[in-house]
């Protein structure tokens, strides 16, 4: 019996839940042994709350028959844990820049590309660095940039597809601005609105230095105050110009508040503290669920300016994984790519790297709304069944293609990160 067959029949065992009967049907009885063996396996999947979701882990555990524990930390605590306590993590949820660091530090092992079942169905964003015939932006660390490595135990990245992946992308999105259409009074399509004096005392910005600076850079670029060689890897001079302008704005009382967590951004907007702020797509939806109008700005690229700030999280395998646990980890990754999870994250506005499998787990109406940018044929609910949008609503920013092709930079850690951090603190304390 080949390994492949073995896996298949084990799936059936688990799915039907009629272990004994299925084992009787299986000539060697091997699935029962595997089922017994994996029962005691526990995978610890660690990462940020918007990417490592308990409901998804629970479903995976149910489908796969072993234990999955989801642990949430903020971005900086996660990368610190992956690097300083790698043995306390099995699956590291990595952003592109974190994957790059994890490879350099040698804490993750390469994932064999050919064992990722849906790899051939991945969007070309991940396999060619292009989408809809155009190259994706390589400002910052795109999901393509840090996705491949030289070998299983290598500490260097490989430019372009190789036999080994640093992580398997699982969720990504495009971030922009959220605003109150009732108070702002017109459609916002440019980042410069966020620093426009007319919103003095009513604006907010993201206070996670590494990505807050990119939102600020998009604003400065849009307003023509600073032009950047690469917003994803600024020079000291560019950082200085950006921060100096931020300080000037702060002293003029422009920012009502900054925010660090998803919930804070929702609260600021819902409580009327700000009218416009940098924001994540599901946070905008969370404001709307409270019956407060909130729009996610479609900041499509134009004249070499604007565009969304993209990010992508994927699953990396820690170096210590081996034997059955490693097998289980591959099973887990393949389960992620098989559609249930893709559909789940799509229902709060994020995207799957394999939309073809996610589509199978979504209703036609859901797919039309979330991916195709069409008016919702029927009311839309979130992944937990809470009503979100009435029928007829069109998603802000349009279709999947409209949004993703308009990403102009990606979350990153710049070479000058230490300097930038220091300057960001200058802004905070000013």
């Amino acid at each position, binding site marked *: 019996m080949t390994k492949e067959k073995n896996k298949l029949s084990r799936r059936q065992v688990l799915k039907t839940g009629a272990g004994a009967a299925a084992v009787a049907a299986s000539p060697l009885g091997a699935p029962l042994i595997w089922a017994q063996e994996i029962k005691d396996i526990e995978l610890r999947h660690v990462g940020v709350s918007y990417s490592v979701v308990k409901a998804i882990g629970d479903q995976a555990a149910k489908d796969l028959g072993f234990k999955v524990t989801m642990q949430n930390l903020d971005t900086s605590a996660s990368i610190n844990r992956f*690097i300083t306590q790698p043995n306390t993590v099995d699956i590291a949820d990595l952003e592109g820049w974190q994957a790059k*660091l994890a490879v*350099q530090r040698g804490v993750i092992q390469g994932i064999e590309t050919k064992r990722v079942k849906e790899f051939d169905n991945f969007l070309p964003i991940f396999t060619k660095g292009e989408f809809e015939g155009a190259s994706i932006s390589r400002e910052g660390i795109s999901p393509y940039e840090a996705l491949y490595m030289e070998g299983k135990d290598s500490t260097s990245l490989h430019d372009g597809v190789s036999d080994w992946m640093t992580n398997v992308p699982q969720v990504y999105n495009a971030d922009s601005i959220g605003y109150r259409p009732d108070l702002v009074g017109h459609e916002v399509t440019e980042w410069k609105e966020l620093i426009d004096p007319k919103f003095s005392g009513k604006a907010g910005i993201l206070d996670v230095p590494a990505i807050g600076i990119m939102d600020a850079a998009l604003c400065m670029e849009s307003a023509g105050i600073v032009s950047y060689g690469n917003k994803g890897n600024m020079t000291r001079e560019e950082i200085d110009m950006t921060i100096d302008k931020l300080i000037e704005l702060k002293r003029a009382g422009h920012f009502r508040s900054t*925010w660090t967590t998803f919930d804070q951004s929702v609260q600021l907007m819902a*409580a009327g503290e700000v009218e416009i702020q940098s924001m994540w797509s599901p946070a905008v939806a969370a404001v709307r669920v409270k019956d407060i109008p909130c729009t996610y700005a479609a900041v499509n690229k134009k004249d070499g300016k604007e565009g969304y700030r993209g990010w992508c999280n994927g699953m990396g395998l820690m170096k210590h994984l081996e034997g059955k646990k490693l097998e289980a980890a591959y099973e887990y990754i393949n389960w992620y790519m098989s559609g249930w999870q893709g559909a789940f994250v799509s229902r709060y506005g994020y995207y799957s790297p394999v939309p073809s499998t996610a589509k199978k787990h979504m209703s036609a109406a859901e797919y039309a709304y979330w991916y195709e940018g069409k008016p919702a044929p029927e009311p839309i609910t979130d992944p937990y069944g809470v009503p979100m949008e009435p029928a007829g609503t069109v998603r802000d920013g349009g279709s999947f293609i409209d949004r993703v092709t308009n990403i102009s930079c990606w979350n990153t850690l710049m070479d000058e990160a230490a300097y930038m951090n220091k300057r960001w603190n200058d802004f905070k*304390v000013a």
Partner: protein
Amino acid sequence: MSPGRNLVGWLNVTPLLLVLIPFFVIPICVVLAVSFVETDGFGGLYPVFTLDNYAMLFRSDLTLRLYAATLKFTLLTLLFTSVIGFWVAYFLVFHVRSKLIAMGLFLVCTVPFWTSNIVRMISWIPLLGKEGLINTGLQGVGIINEPLEFLLFSSFSVVVAYVHQLTIFMIVPIFNSMARIDKSVVEAALDAGASRLDIMRMIILPMSRSGIALGAIFVTSIVMGDFFVVKVMSGGGTASVVGAFYEDVGVLQYPTAAASAIVLTLVVMLLVAAILRVVDIRKEITQ
């Protein structure tokens, strides 16, 4: 000193040492070591001795501004918590006749602390916000037309949250030292014709000094070491010493963060030493 007494002494300090050595001494030694090494800037440490991390810290005026901001909050919090804490304790000890009721009221002071710090802090936000209870109330009555924005995401809201969180750390030790004041001393002073003010100035205040000093040590070390309250309540509008090096850790700049942590530890130790210089707590407690 006989060997027996020596042994008993060591046994007495053993539990404390068992906690302090693994959870304080060793970690701080690690931090100290890291503060003197070089880094590749991405989390890797080279075992090469350098003073650059400290040099950078002392050459940057950001350090000064961060300490100024943090010290400002520490002093304001100390001022309000000690005034409020002193009067609460004074009332409980000298104005509540029944010991039982005094103890009961004292326990009531701790009720808000049954819930977490974070909840107590966050609960100020709906109260102080632009559309919060206070602003809508005042606007409803017609006292103001525009919401008062200084109430939230300002130094004001930071101090409010600190005072709310930390006053208990003043009440407890002050209550404790006041409770040990012999009431007959106060009566004797009254009989001898002392005014209320004299009693306060010459008896109660001096005899509560150790409590105030203990409370001040708690408050100072907590506020100096905090970053979360500042971050949330100021709406990111100001920074703190710890907040700044927490962000260094976030981008894996371990040595500079370690150097900042060591400097902060020294500063807090100096502040505590200064408090202890003013009040000899050891002497006062064993009196």
